[in-house]
């Protein structure tokens, strides 16, 4: 693959691309520029974060005390479903793809993404998907209400009309992800600057390469299972209906064959982000690059064979339970490598604690909490108790909020000066971090105890012994939500103006993106960077890059 690059001759600014995007809204609609599309993804993600977060706050308000205060159970169920689907498909994934769009061409020295029009298409499918998904709330019997996992037959035979709109929204988001993944693979494999070997690619690029493969593996299967639900609903098939020879559990197998790789799709690029930030603020190269890459590959491989750990209570044969338990806990080993290598990167470094670094360190600590509760969940006998309780809700928020979301926020603080050319307000950034770090634990740590004390997931009302945990969680959630308004403020202010960032705002940061001015020119690397630059910004350890 790497020999491809030597042969490529890249001239001056490409012909059709010498002019920028047309002005106004139309320009954003038709743009083929990776930075524009990256911005679109990130803006959509931020908007949906507040939308999905608003639902979360409504959920927390309802759970503030026992009894129903705000909504009927059916509305509650669709709030939970919409919250989960929105956060996963319209917040975390678009944010990560947005980061990929902005950063991958900058980091590998490419003029743009490999397939710019497909890139535009991938993005514009998402707002329509959001419309189909959220529009369901206005239909008779309300929005989709079977949880983000839409288990059959609750979603098939018993689902409201909005379920069909949700299914088609999932199809659109699936097409978007598959196209995005193809684009990313093609870009990374084919558009690297001459002289940048695969092994020398930045970790963020590496994690996205692996993630793209996982997307190609997982998303079509999700489309398939959603289609089966659709045909069971309307065309008389009986995939999930025992009366016709089917099995509701079949849904879960196929869903989780997608679903589990999906959760790693949401964490691997986050690992990549953290692997960029920690070396920059430790002023020390990443510890053990090769094993970091290998660990990601191992995690991705394992993620395809552990899906049934979400189904330990469906009554699987014991041999199956054992297999899925072993495979699951093995993932802790490559993840251990990652965590300890990050710490080793900081070890004997020269650490400074600008906002991105704070979020990255927060990530390392709190993701570990989530990962450890994951290992607890993987213990089958214990999971007989944990499954479908708030213990799972605690786990998933530690890995997703203090994992994926924290890394995304870190990435935005890290690269925003590059994108906008302005420094953000460091004091507000730190305020944002400390408010978030404290409140997020207040919101989600008590959920472990609520789960152990017997609180099931997806209930609008609960027994009295759970009142205290829920009270604390709700308060924490509200503070966390407010803290995100600080974030919004900081981002908007930085886009509008601020101290010039210079091309390399972080003295410890290495990588091709920092060789460009801030903000970078519209066509990032119209001429590929020279070999010397590629070498100087690449990893210096192990001599891997220097051999070319």
């Amino acid at each position: 693959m790497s020999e491809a690059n030597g042969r490529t001759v890249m001239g001056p600014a490409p012909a059709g691309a010498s002019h920028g995007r047309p002005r106004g809204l139309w320009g954003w609609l038709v743009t083929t520029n990776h930075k524009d599309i990256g911005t679109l993804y990130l803006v959509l993600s931020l908007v949906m974060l507040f939308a999905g977060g608003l639902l979360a706050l409504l959920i927390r308000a309802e759970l503030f005390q026992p009894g129903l205060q705000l909504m009927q159970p059916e509305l509650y169920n669709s709030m939970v479903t919409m919250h989960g689907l929105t956060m996963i498909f319209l917040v975390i994934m678009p944010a990560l793809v947005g980061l990929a769009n902005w950063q991958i061409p900058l980091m590998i020295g490419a003029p743009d993404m490999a397939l710019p029009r497909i890139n535009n298409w991938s993005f514009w499918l998402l707002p329509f998907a959001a419309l189909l998904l959220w529009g369901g709330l206005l239909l008779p019997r309300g929005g989709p209400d079977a949880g983000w996992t839409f288990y059959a037959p609750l979603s098939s035979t018993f689902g409201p009309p909005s379920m069909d709109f949700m299914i088609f929204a999932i199809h659109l988001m699936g097409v978007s992800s598959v196209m995005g993944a193809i684009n990313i693979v093609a870009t990374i494999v084919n558009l690297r600057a001459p002289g940048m070997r695969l092994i020398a690619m930045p970790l963020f690029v590496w994690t996205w390469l692996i993630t793209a493969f996982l997307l190609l593996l997982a998303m079509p299967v999700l489309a398939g299972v959603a289609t089966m639900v659709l045909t069971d609903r309307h065309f008389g098939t009986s995939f999930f209906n025992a009366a016709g020879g089917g099995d509701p559990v079949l849904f879960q197998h196929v869903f989780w064959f997608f679903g589990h790789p999906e959760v790693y799709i949401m964490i691997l690029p986050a690992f990549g982000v953290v692997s960029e930030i920690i070396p920059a603020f430790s002023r020390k190269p990443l510890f053990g690059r090769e094993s970091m890459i290998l660990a990601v590959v191992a995690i991705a491989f394992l993620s395809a064979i552990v899906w049934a750990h979400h189904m330990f209570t469906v009554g699987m044969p014991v041999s199956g339970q054992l297999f899925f338990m072993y495979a699951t806990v093995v993932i802790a080993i490559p993840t251990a490598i990652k965590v300890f290598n990050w710490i080793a990167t900081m070890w004997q470094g020269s650490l400074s604690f600008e906002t991105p670094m704070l979020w990255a360190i927060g990530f390392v600590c709190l993701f570990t909490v989530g990962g450890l509760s994951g290992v607890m969940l993987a213990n089958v006998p214990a999971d007989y108790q944990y499954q479908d309780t708030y213990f799972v809700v605690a786990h998933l928020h530690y890995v997703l909020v203090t994992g994926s979301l924290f890394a995304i926020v870190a990435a935005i603080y890290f690269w925003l000066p590059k994108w906008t050319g302005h420094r953000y307000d460091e004091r507000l950034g730190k305020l944002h971090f400390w408010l978030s770090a404290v409140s997020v634990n207040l919101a989600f740590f008590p959920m472990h105890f609520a789960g152990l004390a017997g609180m099931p997931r997806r209930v609008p009302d609960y027994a009295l012994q759970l009142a205290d945990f829920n009270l604390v969680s709700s308060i924490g959630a509200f503070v966390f939500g407010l803290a995100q308004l600080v974030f919004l403020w900081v981002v908007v202010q930085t886009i509008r103006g601020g101290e010039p960032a210079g091309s390399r705002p972080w003295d410890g940061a290495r990588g091709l993106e920092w060789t460009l001015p801030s903000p970078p020119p519209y066509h990032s690397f119209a001429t590929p960077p020279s070999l010397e630059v590629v070498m100087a910004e690449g990893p210096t350890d192990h001599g891997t890059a220097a051999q070319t």
Partner: protein
Amino acid sequence: MSESDGPSPAAAPALADGLLHWNLPRGVTSTSQQVYAMHMMVTWVSALVAIVVFAAVLWTVVRYRRSRGAVPAGFSGHLGLEVIWTLVPALVLIGMAIPTTRVLLDINRSGSAAVTVRVTGSQWKWHYAYPDLGIGFYSNLKDDSREASRKGSNRSPQTVPHYLSDVDRPLVLPTGLDVRLQIASDDVIHSWWVPELGFKRDAIPGFINLMDFVIDSPGIYRGQCAELCGVGHAYMPIVVQAVAPDAFKTWALAEQQRQAALRSESAARPWTMAEALTQGQATYEAICAACHQKDGQGLPGAFPALKGSKVVAGPIAEHIRLVVHGSPKNPVMRAFGKEMDDRQLAGLITYERNAWGNNTGDLATPEQVEAAR
């Protein structure tokens, strides 16, 4: 957590329960105790790992600050170290996997059963049947919880004993004997979960999951449905009343006699309005009230009210057909003809047509129901 069987003090149940609920219960079956041991093992290991990680992070953050003049070292890898932190976690995991495997095999071993109960989840109540004893009944959330939970209710949950965790009829099981549950479902997936028995098992429509255990000590054990099953998912509690084998036998006998007597007595009695209403009310409250509510008001947006309903006020034949064959439009309104006999259905329909000010004065007869089948 297991309380003695008897009237529980209504005062401050929140306080009494609250202090005890920070962890899983140890429980009253060998399964639950093994599960508890596994839970505590993974908890302590996790805590330990967390401490190691936090301590290391804290150390670097304090020790290697640039503001304290730290200069970066140049190293960027160390094979030996990496091998260590690959092997040590692997050993820890293997160390946990060995006892876990043993426990898992033990829990899932199934032997012979002295008492078998068919547990059927049904939106949103549980049905318990003892096939060998000829007993069967529905178990519903108690009305006071239902009332207090409702939006805008003027009854506070704090005043309800065992809020959301109490039922009209508990599942009665003997202690010390092998119990086997056959868990099934009428509609969507539910999950039968009583923490003190040690596990949950999903109730999957069309399939049966087995669950074997022996309860060590008498008491009342509470749990609830643990799989999202629609609107009433929060309102499907489970209460197990474990009694000594002798007491169980006595109970079963009495229950058999009671159910038989009910059947023969009512079969012998002439089909009058009063008879139909009494029977109908009992059936309605056991089965229909979970959705349409005890007062026939339904839940706006989810379940139609029967009070003043067009179907109930309309031709009786249509009403009977809907109940017997279910709604063609909405699967939640399933075909109850399969579950109930003619007299039950006739009583039920009569009750619906005359309760809550529906005063149609109609008396549905078992013959009408039979004709509609």
